[in-house]
């Protein structure tokens, strides 16, 4: 009995339960995006087992202040209502992961994300190159041949590349060097050349530029203190609102879209009919509080394009129509709180801003196999706020006032 009690008291066990669930769920989710065959058994085992581990972690190891508990319970109630109303289980799993990540190191979560994603995508890439699985190639009139490299669609491959680089850049932060930026830009070019994924190659390019400029301003000695402070002030004040603004902007643009107006038509053409499809979705299904069952027919998994294509790619519109106004608000609030909690960490703000921009066009916002940043809500921050007691700062710095006690 005493041993069992020890297990329940040991926070390490809770963390291990979380990672057991997270790895199972992540592995399966990334696997689904590849052309590797997926057995029903894998889904039947991985998903319920992951839910069990995550649920046990929450029930046995997590302790919440009353206010936080009530907020989390409301959020879980919201995703349960979304499930009942729309039949979609994805928001529930997303929220379960967010809730279960309490007190787990966010750095570890991201490292696990990188390890699992890189392993599966690398295997799919090699298998497609050797013709063991299909490398879907889409012949288009204007955009040439688009390769998927073992992933179900070229833009999904591009999205994987973008999010992998984003997570890597976030973890590296100030340790990024010039060759990291060069490699990332080259990767963006290659994604554009081989996959013609304009959004993801563009976002990867912007990622390199933003982090390079950010690091240049905040760490270069030649930059004036005024500029540094201005840059930090701007990001800390405005960074957390980027997603909310872009969500509102996306919804507004889609509502205002006019099919018979030449300017709107041109704009819609540039973003591959996102506005038209979203507008049609609103007209056909309308808005609900907790979502509705909408048949989404998208590309991917085969080179035969569906004749009745109707997929809402914009994440915000997708959430609004499929999972309801309530869930869209909840999701935006969660990301905003994540940003507020990490407002001392400029790299986090850069990352969420880039995710927000990407999700205006792509639908990966609550897919943890692409975007793991929502898990920062309850997890331990990667970087501590300035002035807070930091073991690393005190101990490992070799000089300065907080002198090291360890001798070399």
């Amino acid at each position, binding site marked *: 009995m005493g041993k069992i009690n020890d297990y329940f008291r040991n926070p390490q066990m809770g963390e291990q339960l979380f990672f057991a669930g997270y790895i199972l769920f992540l592995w399966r989710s990334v696997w689904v995006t590849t052309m590797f065959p997926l057995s029903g058994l894998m889904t039947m085992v991985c998903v319920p087992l992951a839910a069990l581990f995550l649920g046990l972690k929450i029930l046995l190891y997590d302790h919440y202040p009353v206010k936080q508990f009530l907020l989390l319970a409301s959020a879980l109630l919201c995703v349960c209502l979304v499930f009942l109303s729309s039949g979609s289980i994805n928001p529930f799993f997303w929220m379960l992961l967010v809730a279960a990540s309490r007190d787990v190191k966010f750095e570890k979560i991201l*490292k696990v994300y990188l*390890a699992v994603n890189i392993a599966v995508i690398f*295997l799919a890439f090699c298998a497609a190159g050797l013709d063991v699985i299909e490398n879907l190639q889409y012949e288009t009139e204007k955009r040439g041949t688009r390769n998927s490299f073992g992933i179900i669609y070229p833009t999904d491959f591009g999205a994987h590349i973008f999010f992998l680089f984003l997570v890597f850049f976030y973890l590296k932060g100030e340790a990024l060097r010039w060759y990291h930026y060069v490699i990332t830009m080259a990767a963006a070019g290659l994604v554009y050349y081989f996959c013609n994924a304009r959004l993801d190659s563009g976002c990867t390019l912007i990622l390199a530029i933003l982090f390079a400029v950010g690091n240049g301003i905040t760490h270069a000695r030649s930059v004036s203190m005024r500029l540094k402070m201005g840059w930090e002030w701007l990001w800390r004040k405005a960074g957390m609102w980027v997603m909310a603004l872009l969500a509102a902007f996306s919804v507004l643009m889609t509502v205002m879209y006019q099919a018979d107006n030449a300017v709107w038509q041109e704009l819609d053409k540039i973003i591959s009919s996102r506005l038209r499809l979203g507008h049609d979705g609103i007209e056909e299904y309308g808005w609900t509080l907790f979502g509705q069952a909408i048949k989404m027919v998208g590309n991917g998994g085969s080179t035969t394009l569906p004749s009745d294509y109707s997929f809402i790619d914009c994440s915000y519109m997708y959430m609004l129509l499929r999972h309801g106004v309530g869930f869209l608000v909840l999701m935006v609030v969660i990301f905003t709180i994540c940003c507020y909690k990490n407002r001392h960490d400029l790299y986090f703000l850069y990352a969420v801003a880039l995710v927000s921009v990407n999700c205006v066009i792509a639908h990966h916002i609550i897919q943890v196999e692409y975007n793991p940043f929502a898990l920062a809500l309850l997890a331990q921050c990667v970087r501590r706020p300035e002035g807070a007691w930091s073991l690393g700062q005190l101990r490992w710095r070799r000089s300065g006032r907080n002198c090291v006690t*360890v001798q070399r």
Partner: protein
Amino acid sequence: MKNLKSIYFNNLIQDFWKKRKIILCFMVVCAALFAFLSVKRAQTVRELTQEQIEEIEEYHEKIEEYDKTIADAEKSLELVNQQIDELQKYVDQSIYMKLDGQNIQTAAVQYGVTTEANVGNILNALVLYINEGGLKEALSEEYPDLAVESWREVIAPSITANLLNITIIHYDEEQLKQIFELVKTRVKEQVPEIAKVEGGFSLDEIDSSIYTKADVGVTNNQNNHLNNLKGYISNRVDLENKLISQQNNKKNYIEKSEPEVMEARQIHPVMQTIAYIIVGMLFGIILPALIFILNYILSDRIRSKEDLRNANLNVIGSYHEKKGYAPALERSMMDLEILARNRQLSSIFLNVMGEDEINKKVAADYAEAIGRAGFQAETGFHVYEEAEELKKMADSKACVLFAQVGKNTYAQLEQQLRLCERFQVRVLGCVIIG
């Protein structure tokens, strides 16, 4: 900010290399599994059975049939669309379709022909000029409002003996007058041209009038045209439905009846097997590597002295049960002695994390060596919990940490370092055991 623990890839690779035999076995198993899959796949695509061939032929025939029907429907649809466009344009733009059957603006003029030449030929030439000839020439550009292209229906010339009658109908009185004047002028201008060919004649206007009339025939004709248009539109809807239905049928048929193997592929069995084996080997390497990396990321236990050194911690020595001290105890003692003398210490506290036999042995060895070097050595195994040991460590002002690989965690190590920090005890270095 530097974290105490991270992934050190060199150490990871070294660990990986230590387990090479197990990994090699796993690689072979994966490669064999993939080779088996390759053979299975090759069998399904290299040769087709008679039944499969018949199934594929039937499938292609059916698809061809669907394609033909779809192509026919598309062609018909194209024709109907063209006819609808033309008819719609006529209904929208022609003067005749705008006429009000009960209120038709009409203009009429009568000419008499006087000649010694053939009257019939002259009148025919004039009628031809009005209907098909140059009456309308260059008027479209000059009078775009008058819808010149649809005059044929509203200007009607007729011949009686040597008389030429021209009747014009229109919905708008002003435009009617304009057209009427234009026609009269143009007919007069044409007289010398016809006279050059047919012989001299004179064309004299006998009478002209402008009035309003009602004509049921016009309304009937208009209705006929509108009915035709409706018929075409209804035909188009039928064709569109037919097209959609055929496309859906084809899609459903493909979904339900597409044979699993469509053709016998010319594959090189050896090359395919090699490709599969390579992928199998990759699985055999990547999966264990992933497990290793995850283990590194998730485990909080101290893995190796190299990890601590990479985290800028001063590792003065290590002890392994089989390999003994590395470097030798004497060499580690030299470091310790120099550090202690530089700081003018008289005693060194040995802070050992855990009371295992191996820990006790290493601590005793170090205590003895420190004693031989002329320093006082105190040893504690529960510094964090026991006040007496903590007091001894604080009095010593300096300590050496003893951590056991695979047992002590980074969190414990951090806790100890924090404790030393708080009590202003200098950590001279670490000794790694195991």
